[in-house]
């Protein structure tokens, strides 16, 4: 059979790797990107938890020792909370912290006020941050390494996907150079 002898079709393999690796990385990229934006602005907000602080007046509880189980129960009952009281801590002779699931009640026995701090995990963000900041450790560490290597492969293969004017020899080289220059400029300014 007559025909041109085919060598190793590197561009075909390059594009195939780029395409399939791209599909595989969609989920991971979404996780890292969402968390990346959330954590990037953590000076302005808490990316993991929604913390609400309120102050409620309390009726005086005089017949029991502050911090005792009877005292803690009386405070929780007054505030209409239900659930297990984990424990308490006396910050000072006039301050008692009472701990419940995701709720801390700071009782001021001088002014008879309760500062209530309730913490709620932000849905989706808490989970994506958990993965992005490698809280699970163990096997997730290696999975994140695999993802990082995949990103390197995606970047490398992207440069050789097209031939001609739109490829790396054409406008591709200028866009690549701009991409390389961006972090360098910021390093020159801030480093």
């Amino acid at each position, binding site marked *: 059979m007559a025909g041109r002898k085919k060598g190793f079709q590197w561009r075909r393999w390059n594009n195939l790797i780029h395409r399939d690796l791209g599909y595989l990385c969609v989920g991971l990229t979404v996780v890292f990107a969402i968390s990346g934006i959330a954590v990037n602005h953590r000076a302005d907000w808490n990316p993991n938890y929604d913390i609400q602080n309120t102050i409620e007046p309390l009726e005086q509880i005089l017949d029991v020792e502050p911090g005792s189980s009877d005292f803690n129960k009386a405070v929780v009952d007054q505030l209409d909370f239900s659930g297990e009281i984990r424990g308490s*801590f006396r*910050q000072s002779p006039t301050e008692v912290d009472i701990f419940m699931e995701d709720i801390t009640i700071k009782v001021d026995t001088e002014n008879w006020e309760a500062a209530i701090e309730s913490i709620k995990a932000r849905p989706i963000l808490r989970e994506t941050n958990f993965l992005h*900041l490698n809280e699970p450790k163990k096997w997730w560490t290696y999975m994140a390494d695999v993802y990082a290597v995949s990103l390197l492969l995606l970047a490398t293969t992207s440069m050789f996907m097209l031939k001609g004017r739109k490829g790396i020899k054409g406008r591709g080289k200028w866009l690549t150079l701009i991409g390389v220059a961006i972090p360098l400029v910021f390093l020159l300014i801030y480093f």
Partner: protein
Amino acid sequence: MKNVALALLVFVLAACSSEPAVFEGTTYGQPVSLTERTDISAIAHNPTEYLGKDVLVEGTIVEICTSMGCWMDIASDREFEKIQIKVEDGVIVFPVSAKGRQALVEGKVEELDQTVDQAKAHAKEMAEEKGVAFDSTAVFESTKIYRIRGVGAVIAE
């Protein structure tokens, strides 16, 4: 056979002599290896004696960094007293939901020698992490803070 018996004897002796402190819960960071607990009140009473030493302390978690879970305060065995456990950012992340639970922590006692500006910056950072307002008009003094640089912890379920 003789070798197996000898190995077993060595294993049993080693297990008896350095059995880690028993505490059920989730481990964060390195597993706890010290066997003897130190009272937090003893460290607070005479911090220079413990400076640079590895200690194992136990107490109720009374505060946790809500921003990154990179520190927590645990209550002392003495009233109105607590100690801060600081861990490397991202290496150990204490869950905010653990507030009020019992913790066993291993680490090294360290000293923070703060200037007035550093004390003010530290107070501001703590206020931000606790989600409370920072009083910029408060007067700060240069101070020494003693805390534990935690390497491992077990938090009860």
